[in-house]
C-alpha cells in the first residue's frame, strides 16, 4: 500500500536499523578487532592475527568448558523438551483449571533467572537442611549436592529443566492448537488408540514446531551464563564451568580481553549457524512472507 512514497519505508525503519547496527553489529566488529590483537587494559598493543584464537582453542580449560557445555545442554535439552511436551499434552484442553496450571508452570520462567538460580542454590545448599532431609533416607546423608562434580551438574540440569520446561510447553501448546480438531476426532471415531493418534497425527503435524522449540531451547541452553554463574559458580573446581562462563571469566576476572573476544566471536559463529537453521524452519512454517 502507498507504494508511491518511495523513501517513506526507509525513513520509518531507519532508527530501528540504526539502533541494531549500533548495539549489535558494531560491538561484533569491535569484538572481532580486539580478538585479532593483543589487548591490555583496553589498549591495543599489537596485531597478532589469529593468535588469540589459537590460544583459546588449544587451552585445556576451554576444552573442558566445551565438554561441560555439551553435557549440560544436551541432557537439559532432552529433559526440558520431554517434560515440556508432556506438560503441553497434559494441559492442552482449554479450561479454567488448565489455564491456572499453565500459569503455575510459567512462574519459574517469569521470575529473574538470577533469582530462580539463587532460590535453588538455597534449596540445594547444605545449610538449608533440605538435602539432608531428602538424601539421608537414601543413605547419602553426607552428600553436599553442590560440592560434588556429578551432583552439581545434576543440580545445574535441574535448574534448566525447572525454569525452561515452561517455554517448551508454551511453544508446543501453540503448535498443538494449530492442529485441526476434526482430524483427532475423525481418528477417534475410527477407533484409533491415543498412542496411535499421537504418533500418526500429533507428531507429524507438529514436526516444525517441535524443531523450532528444540533449536530455540538449545540456543538458550548453550548460551546461559546465569545458571552456572549463580548456582554452582562453575564448581566444584571447573566441573560445571560452561564455555560462556569461561568467556565471562576470561574477560572480567582474567582481564584478557583479546582472548575473551576471540571466544565470544567463536560462540557467536556457532549461534549464527543455529539461527540459520531456525530461520529455515521459520520459513517452512510460513512466518516470513
Amino acid at each position: 500500500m502507498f507504494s508511491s512514497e518511495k523513501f517513506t519505508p526507509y525513513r520509518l525503519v531507519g532508527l530501528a536499523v540504526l539502533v541494531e547496527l549500533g548495539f549489535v553489529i558494531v560491538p561484533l566488529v569491535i569484538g572481532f578487532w580486539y580478538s585479532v590483537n593483543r589487548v591490555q587494559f583496553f589498549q591495543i598493543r599489537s596485531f597478532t592475527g589469529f593468535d588469540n584464537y589459537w590460544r583459546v582453542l588449544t587451552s585445556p580449560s576451554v576444552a573442558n568448558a566445551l565438554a561441560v557445555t555439551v553435557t549440560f545442554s544436551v541432557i537439559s535439552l532432552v529433559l526440558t523438551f520431554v517434560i515440556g511436551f508432556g506438560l503441553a499434552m497434559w494441559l492442552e484442553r482449554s479450561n479454567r483449571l488448565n489455564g491456572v496450571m499453565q500459569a503455575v508452570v510459567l512462574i519459574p520462567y517469569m521470575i529473574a533467572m538470577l533469582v530462580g538460580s539463587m532460590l535453588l542454590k538455597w534449596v540445594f545448599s547444605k545449610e538449608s537442611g533440605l538435602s539432608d532431609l531428602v538424601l539421608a533416607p537414601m543413605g547419602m546423608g553426607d552428600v553436599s549436592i553442590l560440592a560434588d562434580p556429578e551432583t552439581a551438574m545434576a543440580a545445574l540440569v535441574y535448574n534448566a529443566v525447572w525454569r525452561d520446561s515452561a517455554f517448551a510447553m508454551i511453544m508446543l501448546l501453540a503448535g498443538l492448537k494449530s492442529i485441526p480438531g476434526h482430524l483427532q476426532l475423525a481418528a477417534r471415531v475410527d477407533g484409533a488408540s491415543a498412542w496411535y493418534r499421537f504418533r500418526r497425527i500429533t507428531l507429524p503435524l507438529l514436526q516444525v514446531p517441535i524443531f523450532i522449540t528444540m533449536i530455540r531451547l538449545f540456543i538458550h541452553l548453550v548460551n546461559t551464563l546465569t545458571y552456572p554463574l549463580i548456582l554452582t559458580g562453575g564448581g566444584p573446581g571447573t566441573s560445571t564451568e560452561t564455555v560462556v562462563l569461561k568467556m565471562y571469566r576470561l574477560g572480567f576476572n582474567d582481564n584478557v580481553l583479546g582472548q575473551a573476544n576471540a571466544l565470544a566471536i567463536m560462540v557467536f559463529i556457532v549461534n549464527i549457524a543455529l539461527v540459520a537453521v531456525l530461520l529455515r524452519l521459520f520459513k517452512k512454517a510460513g512466518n516470513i512472507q
Partner: protein
Amino acid sequence: MNDNPYLRHAFRRAALRTVVNAGIVFFALAPIAWGVLSSLKPTNQILEVPPRFIPQDVTLEHYERVIGDKGLLFLGNSALISAITIVCALAIGSIAAYAIARYEFPGRKVLMVFTIGVMSIPIASLLIPTFTLLSVVGLINTHVGLILLYTAYQLPIVIWMLYGYFLSLPVEVEHAARIDGYTALGTLRRVVLPLSKPALVAAALFVLVFAWNDFVVAVTMTSSESVRTFPVAVYFYLGFYGREWGPLLAAAVISIIPIILIFIVLQRYFISGLTGGGVKG
C-alpha cells in the same frame, strides 16, 4: 455407586488428574515457597536442623535490612530503566513494524530475516564485545548505556509482535486517513496505535519483564551503586552477605513480587510474545 464401572473409571481419572496436577504445582513452586518461608524466619531459625517448614516466629527484619541498605535506590534504578526502555522500544519498534507491515519495498524481506536473526542471537555472545564498545564510547556504567542496550535487544521482538498485529488490522481506515491528509506517522499515531492496545500491552510487558529481570547485561555494564539495578544488587548481596540467607532471600522475594503480580493479571499477553511468531497458531 462403587458397582458402576463408568463412575469408578471417572473417579479414578479425576484422582489421577489431581495427583499429577498437585505434583506439577509442587515442583514448580516449592523452591519459591521455600525461599519465601525462609525469608520470614529470624536468622537463628533459618539454619535450624531439621528445617521447620512453617516459620515459628514471623519477622520482616530481613526485608527491612535490604530496603534500608540502599534497596530503594536499586529498585528505583530498575523501575526507571525499565520504564524508559519500554517507551523507547515501543516508539521505535511501532514505527518500524508499521513500515514492514504496510509497505512493499526492496530490502523488506532482508529486514525481516535480520529481525528474527537478531531476536534469536543470545546476548551472551555479545557481552564481551559490547562491554568493549561501551568502554570505548564512554557509555559504560551509565543509565543511558543500559537503556540503549535493552532497547536494542528488545526491539526485534517488539517489531515482530506489532508487525503481526498490524497485519490483522483493516487497511481501509488507514487509506481514508491518508486521503484526509495524514502523513504515514500521523496515521500510525492517530489511527493504527489506538487500535493496537492489546499488542502494545503485550510488547510493553515483554520489555518490562526483560528489563526488570536482566542481570547478565547490567552486571557486566555497570559497576557503581548509583546506576546499580536491583538484580545486580541481589547478586552483590550474594557476595556481601555470603552465607546470610535471610537478607538474600528477602531480596529475591522483593524482586519477584512485582513480576508475579503483573503476570497474574496479564498472563495471556505474555504468551503471545513468548512464541515470538515462532509457531503459527
